[in-house]
């Protein structure tokens, strides 16, 4: 091996965090496990999805949960042509902000539209639920065109 050859090696950095998700996201995840999506009512009556513990403007503690639909409207999106290993889908897909029916804020998720040409801001999408759910955001496999 030449003394001036440039080295190369795999380097793995791993942190195994265990954490509590808190009472509000805990309830949101429990809802997903049961096949429903819950938001929370903010100080001005707006519905925030996913729910937050404190109002983003007034910082007051929030507690009024609200069911929202599992369909909604894409407000913005980015197409991924070459999914990475840990991406939710192993085929081209869109990361999208989706404003669910009954919500006032959009939520980040994945849209399986087949091709970029089928993506459009304002399009309606519906959640595709996993058959086996255990209380995490991946309980919704992705959103799809209804």
């Amino acid at each position, binding site marked *: 091996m030449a*003394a*001036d*050859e*440039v*080295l*190369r*090696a*795999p*380097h*793995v*950095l*791993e*942190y*195994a*965090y*265990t*954490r*509590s*998700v*808190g*009472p*509000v*996201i*805990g*309830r949101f*995840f*429990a809802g997903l496990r049961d096949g429903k999506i819950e938001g929370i009512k903010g100080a001005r009556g707006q519905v925030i999805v996913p729910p937050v513990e404190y109002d983003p403007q007034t910082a007051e503690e929030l507690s009024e949960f609200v069911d929202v639909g599992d369909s909604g409207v894409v407000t913005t999106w980015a197409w991924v042509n070459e999914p990475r290993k840990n991406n939710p889908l192993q085929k081209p897909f869109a990361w999208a902000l989706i404003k669910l029916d009954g919500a006032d804020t959009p939520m980040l998720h994945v849209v399986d539209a087949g091709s970029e040409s089928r993506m459009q801001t304002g399009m309606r999408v519906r959640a595709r639920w996993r058959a086996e759910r255990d*209380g*995490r955001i991946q309980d919704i496999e992705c959103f799809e065109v209804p």
Partner: protein
Amino acid sequence: MAENMIVTMPIRLEYDYSPGAGRSRFLRGLERGKILGERCHVCHKVYVGGGSGACPRDGVPTEEVVELPDVGTITTFCVVNVPFAGATVEIPYVSASILLDGADIPLMHLIQEVNAEDVRMGMRVRAEWLPEAERIPSMDTIKYFKPAGEPDAPIDEVLKRMRADA
């Protein structure tokens, strides 16, 4: 009503790491039992420890390779008293900045074969290498530094050498 869920969130980052030409030269040197530094042709400072291959002050490539001795002076150090996950050395232990003779910036390494309370600025130390057959292009090829058994160096002069305007 509210469920307080506990989740595990493994964060795993898989890098394909290349240290680049400058650091590769340094690491290849360790594999052969040599500590290689490099001199800047503008300021004449000698950098060691796997720099970028360029002078941080003058921005020019540091192409002149300088073989350094494996002996130097502790310029500053830290006594580690807190155990942590993945630690391989018994506490308390000392991690130190070591200015090798002929170098202008220090290396960071472990100090062993001395009690933590006896380590001091100015202490002369020498590298303890892995046996020849076990040497690889890694900083671990130097197991640690240990007292060289020499009188202390005059610390003020040693520190002055490291100044950017020295």
